[in-house]
């Protein structure tokens, strides 16, 4: 299991290849990559703040819950902080399992929990100003599936 909270960029493809390589018991690898998106036009950058110390622990706890719930061979979580330009990967998760359903469900579970239970806060810097991204009721509702 690899969990990385980092300021620098990462290469999602290289991470996926390293994660998938040499697994003889794994039939399914699912990855999710979150990318800085221009939601309303005029986005210049995304600034991501986090809670050093708590972040790693919160992610590890979410990953442990996923491992307890699904039969997974491995989990990868990478999440950046700092200032990220438009179009750059913010974070990725990957799951490896014998079967595709477990890999898909665990990846969705990880995303749903990372979204609203890991201490990250996003601020959008646009040409007309800055504002903190607000959590949506849908983000909280997503947890009720699990």
């Amino acid at each position: 299991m690899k969990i990385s909270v980092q300021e620098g960029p990462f290469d999602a493809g290289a991470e996926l290849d390293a994660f998938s390589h040499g697994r003889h018991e794994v039939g399914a690898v699912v990855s999710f990559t979150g990318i800085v998106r221009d939601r309303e036009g005029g986005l210049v950058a995304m600034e991501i703040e986090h809670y050093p110390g708590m972040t790693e622990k919160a992610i590890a706890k979410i990953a442990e819950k996923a491992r307890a719930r699904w039969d997974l061979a491995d989990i990868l979580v990478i999440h950046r902080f700092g200032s990220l330009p438009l179009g750059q990967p913010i974070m990725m998760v990957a799951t490896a399992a014998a079967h595709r359903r477990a890999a898909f469900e665990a990846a969705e579970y990880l995303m749903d929990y990372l979204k609203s239970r890991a201490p990250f806060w996003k601020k959008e810097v646009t040409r007309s100003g800055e504002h903190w991204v607000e959590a949506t009721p849908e983000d909280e509702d997503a947890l009720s599936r699990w």
Partner: protein
Amino acid sequence: MIEIVYFAWVRERIGLPRERIETGAATVADLVEELRGREERYAAAFSDVSALRVALDQELSEFEASLSGVREVAFFPPMTGG
């Protein structure tokens, strides 16, 4: 002495990322009351507690929780990772 940490717009409204204070507050809610009474910027940050989340020693917690033995209290808005 307890360490208080602020994130995102809570940090911006209060104007500092962390501070150490001496407090007799028994619960998080008591601490919030005490901070609110300090200065306008605290009152502004804590005006709507339902918009805030709290972590005690880096674990998500509740406003009714006891501060007994706690070294670090963090206040922040709902998280927006992923």
